[in-house]
């Protein structure tokens, strides 16, 4: 994945066919994991905290639904002229959406793996499911890294 063109609020990445298939597969299957409960505070004892936390979680669930809708629009369309070098063209909003989707996948897999402190595969139980989640987590990180680092 390589940034080939960057304009004002626009990014164009060139991917190889395998990367394009993998990214499309991630987007197509999003979300991989259930909603994760979020906390709004760790120390505030205000009685309204529970209500505010509920609102936060409702808002996050809505946001996730919106990301799911937008994931379909980000799927890379392979044109005949670019079979060997598919392009991913994003505006600023789409780029942020894609980053949020990828990080949702990454965090979701990490939570499903039991929030390990170490990301090394040898620390996992190595069941097929865990290996798949570990692979997905790394894959999402790979795309995140390339989206951000090449500015």
């Amino acid at each position, binding site marked *: 994945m390589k940034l080939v063109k960057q304009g004002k609020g626009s990014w164009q990445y060139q991917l190889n066919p395998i990367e394009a298939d993998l990214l499309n597969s991630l987007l197509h299957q999003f979300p991989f994991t259930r909603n994760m409960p*979020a*906390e*709004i*505070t*760790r*120390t*505030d004892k*205000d009685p309204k905290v529970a209500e*505010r936390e509920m609102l*936060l979680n409702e*808002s*996050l669930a809505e*946001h996730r639904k919106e990301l799911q809708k937008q994931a379909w629009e980000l799927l890379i369309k392979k044109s005949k002229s670019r079979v060997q070098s598919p392009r991913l063209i994003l505006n600023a909003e789409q780029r*942020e959406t894609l*980053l*949020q989707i990828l*990080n*949702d996948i*990454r*965090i979701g897999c*990490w939570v499903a793996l039991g*929030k*390990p*402190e*170490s*990301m090394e595969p040898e620390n996992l139980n190595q069941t097929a499911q865990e290996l798949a989640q570990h692979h997905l*987590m790394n894959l999402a*990180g790979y795309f*995140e*890294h390339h989206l*951000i*680092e090449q500015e």
Partner: protein
Amino acid sequence: MPSVAEPVTIPKPVIRKQTRSDDDLAPTYYVICWNDPVNLMVYVSHVFMKIFGWNKATADKHMMEVHEKGKSVLAREGAEKAEFYVHQLQNYKLQATMERAE
């Protein structure tokens, strides 16, 4: 003959009632980002730049603080604004909370 000084009238001090606006009385909150082993460092910096409009140096400084000290205070705001920031940060799946300032 000694002169007699004119009596000086000292105006009574005006004591103004100290008033505070609702904003002064309302509690303020720290917006805190907590460390985790999964979010990429470049991603965390990117999110800080996006949400707070910081330059890369400031964003990196806070990101490193999260990484090395376990947390970083990103802002001190009233409840509404602090909650807004927490929502924004959590949309990006960063572990952010709001904690009442002392």
